[in-house]
């Protein structure tokens, strides 16, 4: 019984990380109509940059949360630059944009390998969250519970941003009908940069706070990108609720799959995707087929 509960908590934790990763992916997709194939790389880059700050450069170490913040800002800036300098050059040519993100992801993966080497780097858990939380007879690692809380806070904050602010209203307008949004005076191309930076930052943040659980290693990007894809295919593009529900579903299936059928964990992911594609190709909460 305890095993199942621990597995469930792990699933929700992983689902929370996936939500942080795929919310940005889904928003970028909703607005720019492209799957950002660098999203896995941004996740990995966030983790590498963050862990470099945590372990210290020349003996100068940073607090975990400060390092996470710095990594998030760094990667968000990189994302904004990539959008401004490269994707911006091919307006409306979605295929070219996808291929550029694909090329960038290979370059990023090889650069990380060059800088940080091929060995996995383990990220130390922040000392204040190292212990366990006890609920009667049940014991959970405090850090995993903290990730759930963080993901929930971010989900609410993102929801408020999208539903309650002027920027959010502009983003929603851009997702719904970019041409009409332009006509009413919204600078959609500026939104592209903002949303790209936001998505990149969220992915990087997920990468560093997921570090103590997943560690950082070459190939982490290739592990995370398909999960983000499956989340978005399940949940539908451009929908925050879709990413949320999709992440939790994928988190559960992936963790339970790995525990029960370790050899087929990836294949089990395929089943819900198959069902959704057959019955509801636009995704559970999507409004249009991508």
């Amino acid at each position, binding site marked *: 019984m305890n095993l199942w509960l621990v597995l469930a908590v792990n699933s929700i934790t992983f689902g929370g990380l996936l939500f942080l990763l795929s919310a940005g992916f889904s928003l970028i997709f909703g607005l720019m*109509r*492209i*799957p950002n*194939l660098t999203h896995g790389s941004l996740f990995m880059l966030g983790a590498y940059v963050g862990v470099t700050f945590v372990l210290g450069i020349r003996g100068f170490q940073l607090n975990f949360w400060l390092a996470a913040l710095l990594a998030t800002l760094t990667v968000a800036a990189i994302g904004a630059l990539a959008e401004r300098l*490269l994707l911006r*050059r*091919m307006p409306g*040519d*979605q*295929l*070219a944009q*996808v*291929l*550029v993100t*694909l*090329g*960038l*992801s*290979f*370059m*990023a*993966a*090889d*650069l990380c390998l*060059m800088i940080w080497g091929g060995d996995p780097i383990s990220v130390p858990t922040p000392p204040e969250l190292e212990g366990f939380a006890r609920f009667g007879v049940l014991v959970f690692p405090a850090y995993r519970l903290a990730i759930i809380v963080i993901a929930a806070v971010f989900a609410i904050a993102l929801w408020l941003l999208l539903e309650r602010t002027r920027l959010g209203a502009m983003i929603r307008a851009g997702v719904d009908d970019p041409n009409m949004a332009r006509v009413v005076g919204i600078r959609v191309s500026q939104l592209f940069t903002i949303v790209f930076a936001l998505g990149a930052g969220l992915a990087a943040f997920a990468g560093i706070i997921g570090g103590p659980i997943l560690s950082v290693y070459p190939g982490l990007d*290739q592990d995370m*990108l*398909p999960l983000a*894809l*499956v989340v*978005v*295919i399940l949940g539908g593009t451009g929908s925050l609720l879709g990413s949320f529900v999709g992440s939790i579903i994928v988190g559960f299936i992936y963790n339970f799959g790995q525990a029960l059928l*370790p*050899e*087929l*964990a*990836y*294949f089990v*992911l*395929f089943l819900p*995707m*198959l069902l959704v*594609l*057959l019955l509801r*190709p636009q995704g559970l909460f999507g409004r249009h*087929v*991508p």
Partner: protein
Amino acid sequence: MSVRAIALGIAFLALATLPYWMSGIYYINVSSQILFYAVFALGLNVLVGYAGLVSLGHAGLFGVTAYATGYMLQLGFGHPIAILVALVISMISMAVFAALSLRSTGIGFIMITLALGEILWGLAYRWISLTGGDNGLSLKTRPEPFGYSLSDVNTFYYATLIIFLLSLAAVAVFVRSPFGSALMGTRDQPRRMNALGYHVWAIRFFACLFSGLLTSVSAILFVYYTQFISPQTLALTSSAEVLLMVISGGAGTLLGPIVGAGLVVAVKTVVSGFIERWNFLLGAIFVAIVILMPEGLVPGTARLWRLAWGKRDRGTGAIAGGAEAKP
């Protein structure tokens, strides 16, 4: 047109006599690689170029065939049965692959094929009892059709050349056939084709199967060439390499993917001799070609050729016809 015929004749002669003038086993082997990758690129081009459907999961399918061949041989079956079973399994996989991916077109198609390809990669990586995981599968022997042993470098080259020429002929016939025209129609004007009474989905589905067949054929050549298969073969980088062959050569042209295959294999072979950073270069070439020469090298050169000879530029298809032309 006659220039083209002469050039093709010279190219054919050069290929047919290659082992006699190419010095060194190494370069003959590289030529075999180029030829079977060209078959793979021809297969992907049926979708990318003629159907306007960009697949990023073809390496997954390639891997299914290669693993099926390897596994059947490991079970102790003979080469003909192993190849036959591998082809049947691949065609069934392709049918499933196509049925799911064709729920969408354009960007959605890319996304679904990418996810499917990654899932096949994960399967090859994790399903250790079947695939050997990271250790991969090894093949002990190459087949000996009609008494010619394919273990010989030259014989393997000629077998690959024959299969390559057959594949090229098949694609050439396919493109000129009414079905090929219908496929290009679904690429450019899916709605009109639908209105004209064509079953757009079925046309795309059969194009996927044809593409899958060529992919499987090249995968069988590949697995006999390397006599080894590991999850790396199914990775996204492999799908991207083939896509780069198609796009760099010129999608939607008959010869473009072949030129692209030659280019990518040659660059990869040369570069990996000097540095380990092939993936970085692959990414950089991708970005550069997409930004600077989106139409590909063959149409780009053909355009310059026509300009140089004063003929009017008739224009060639873009990378993919995902965008509908104005009615």
